[in-house]
C-alpha cells in the first residue's frame, strides 16, 4: 500500500513538474508540449478513432509477424542444436542475420513486396526469427545432459525425448528467447513504420512520423505514451503468465 502510494505520488509529481516547466515557458512550446496538450491530443484521437485504428494496424502486423517468426524459429533452433551440419550452415547464417538490425531489410522488402503489408511482415519476421532460433539453439545445447540420460534409461527415445524432455527442459531459454524476439520485432516494426508510409494502413509509427512532419510534438509525445502502454501490456499478457509458471514450478526468478 505504502509503496503503491509512493509510486503514484512520484508519477503525479513528475507530471506536475512537467506541467509547471512548460507553463513557465522556459522552452518554446514546440520543444516540449505540456501534459495538458498531450492529454488533449490523446482524448481527441481516442474520440475520432485514429488512435485505436492505428494501434490495431500495428498490433496486427506485429502479432502475425511474430507468430510466424516463432513458429519457424522454434523447430529450426531445435534442429540446429541437434545437428552439427545444420549448425555449421543454418546456425552460422542465423548468427550473422541476428546481428543485422531488421530495419535494414526495409529497402529490400519494399522492392520485393512493394509498399505492402507483406513488406512489413517480412521485416517483423526477420526481427523475430533469428533471435528465437538462436535462443532455442542455445537452450537446447546447454541442457544438462543428465535429463536426456535419465529419460533414456527409462526407455524414452527419439521424438518422445524431444517432446517430453528437451522441449520442457529448455523452456526457460525458449521463453527468454521469445521475449527478446518480441522486443526486436516491436522495435523493427516501429522503425519500419516511421521510415516508410504504407498504403495499406497507418500504424502507430506512422502517427509518430506524421507528428514529426507537422511539428506536432504533442502528437509525438502522446503516441509515445501509447507505445509504452502497449509494450507494458504485451509484457504482462504474453510473458508474465509463463514467467510465473516457471517461477512456481522451477523456482526460477525472472
Amino acid at each position: 500500500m505504502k509503496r503503491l502510494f509512493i509510486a503514484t505520488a512520484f508519477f503525479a509529481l513528475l507530471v506536475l513538474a512537467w506541467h509547471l516547466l512548460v507553463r513557465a515557458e522556459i522552452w518554446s512550446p514546440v520543444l516540449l508540449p505540456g501534459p495538458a496538450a498531450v492529454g488533449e491530443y490523446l482524448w481527441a484521437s481516442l474520440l475520432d478513432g485514429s488512435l485505436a485504428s492505428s494501434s490495431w494496424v500495428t498490433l496486427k502486423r506485429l502479432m502475425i509477424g511474430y507468430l510466424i517468426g516463432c513458429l519457424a524459429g522454434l523447430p529450426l533452433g531445435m534442429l540446429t542444436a541437434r545437428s552439427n551440419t545444420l549448425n555449421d550452415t543454418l546456425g552460422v547464417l542465423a548468427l550473422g542475420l541476428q546481428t543485422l538490425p531488421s530495419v535494414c531489410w526495409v529497402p529490400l522488402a519494399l522492392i520485393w513486396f512493394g509498399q505492402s503489408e507483406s513488406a512489413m511482415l517480412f521485416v517483423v519476421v526477420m526481427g523475430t526469427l533469428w533471435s528465437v532460433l538462436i535462443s532455442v539453439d542455445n537452450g537446447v545445447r546447454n541442457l544438462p545432459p543428465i535429463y536426456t540420460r535419465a529419460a533414456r534409461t527409462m526407455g524414452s527415445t527419439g521424438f518422445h525425448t524431444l517432446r517430453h524432455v528437451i522441449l520442457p527442459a529448455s523452456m526457460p531459454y525458449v521463453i527468454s528467447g521469445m521475449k527478446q524476439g518480441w522486443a526486436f520485432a516491436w522495435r523493427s516494426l516501429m522503425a519500419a513504420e516511421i521510415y516508410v508510409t504504407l498504403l495499406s494502413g497507418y500504424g502507430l509509427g506512422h502517427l509518430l512520423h506524421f507528428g514529426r512532419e507537422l511539428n506536432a510534438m504533442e502528437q509525438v509525445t502522446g503516441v509515445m505514451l501509447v507505445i509504452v502502454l502497449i509494450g507494458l501490456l504485451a509484457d504482462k499478457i504474453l510473458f508474465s503468465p509463463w514467467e510465473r509458471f516457471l517461477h512456481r514450478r522451477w523456482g526460477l526468478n525472472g
Partner: protein
Amino acid sequence: RPAPAPDGLLRLGHFPNVTHLQALVARSFSREGRGWFEERLDREVRWFVYNAGPSVAEAIFARSLDAAYMGPSPMLNAYVRSAGREMRALAGAVNGGAALLVHPNSGIRTAADFRGKKLATPQLGNTQDVQARAWLSAQGFAVSLTQHEVYVLPTKNADQLSLFARGDLDAIWTTEPWASRLEMEAGARVFLEDRDTCATLLVARTAFAETQTELTQKLAAAHRELTAWISSHADEAAARVRAELRELTGAEVSAELLARARRRMTLTDQIEAVQLQTLLEQAHAAGFLRASPDLTALLRHCTSVRQPS
C-alpha cells in the same frame, strides 16, 4: 508480389506538391465524381500519394502502380537500374519550378563563395540534387559522398525550412512551393532560378505500356488535354490545386504563395530528349549511376519528344 491491377482499374501515383499540377487538378475532378481520366479512359482510377521519387520507382518495380507523375532523375535512375526494363516515359508535365536560394547571412555573393558552405537538396539523387552537384562541379568544386568542398546535404523539405531559419544551412536548391516559402518565410535570396529544366513527367510501368498500348495512348492524350485545359483556365486550376492540397495534407497554401510558385513553372506536355541526356550524364558524373545507356527504349511510348535538331 502484388498482382497486376484487375482490369478496369488504373493505379496512378503522384506527390502532394504544386509541381504535380496535372495530378492535383485531375484528382480534384475525381473528388467531384467527374474524374478527368475516368471519363476519358472509361476506367476506375485509384490515386496513390508518395512523397519521394524512389518510393514511386519502388512501387513500379513492385508492380503496385501502373503510371505516375514523377521527376526526371528518379525516373532515369529507375530506368538505368532496371537495365532499361521497368520504366517508360509518356509525356512531359511541368518544367522549371526550382531555384537555388541562399541565406541572407551566409555571405554568398558569387559562385566562388560556396566553398565550405552547406547546401541542402531535397533528396539524394533527385533532380535538384543532381543539378546542384553538376552546377557545383561546373563551378570547380569537388563534391561527392566523400569530398566536401561544398557540403551537399540531402534534407527533407519539411526540415529544410527550420534548419534554414536557424542558420544551420547556407543555401538550398529546391522546388516549389518550398522555394517560394523560403523566400517569403525565411527571407531567402534567390541566387539562381530554373524555369526550363524538366521537373515533372508522366511515366508508366513498361509491362503496362506494352500490354495495354491503347490505354496508354489514351492516358497520354488525356494528360495533354488536361495540360491545355490548365493553361487556359489558370484561376480555376489554381483554386482546384489549393483545395486538393488542403484535402491531401491538411495544410493551407496561400494564394500568394501559389501564384509566386506558379510563376516559376512552365506547363508542357513535351519531353526534351537533350535535357534527359544531360541529366543522365550529370547523374553519372555525380556517381549516382554507373552507366549512361541509350534512352530510346525509355521514350518509345512517348509521342511528344522534342529531338535535338
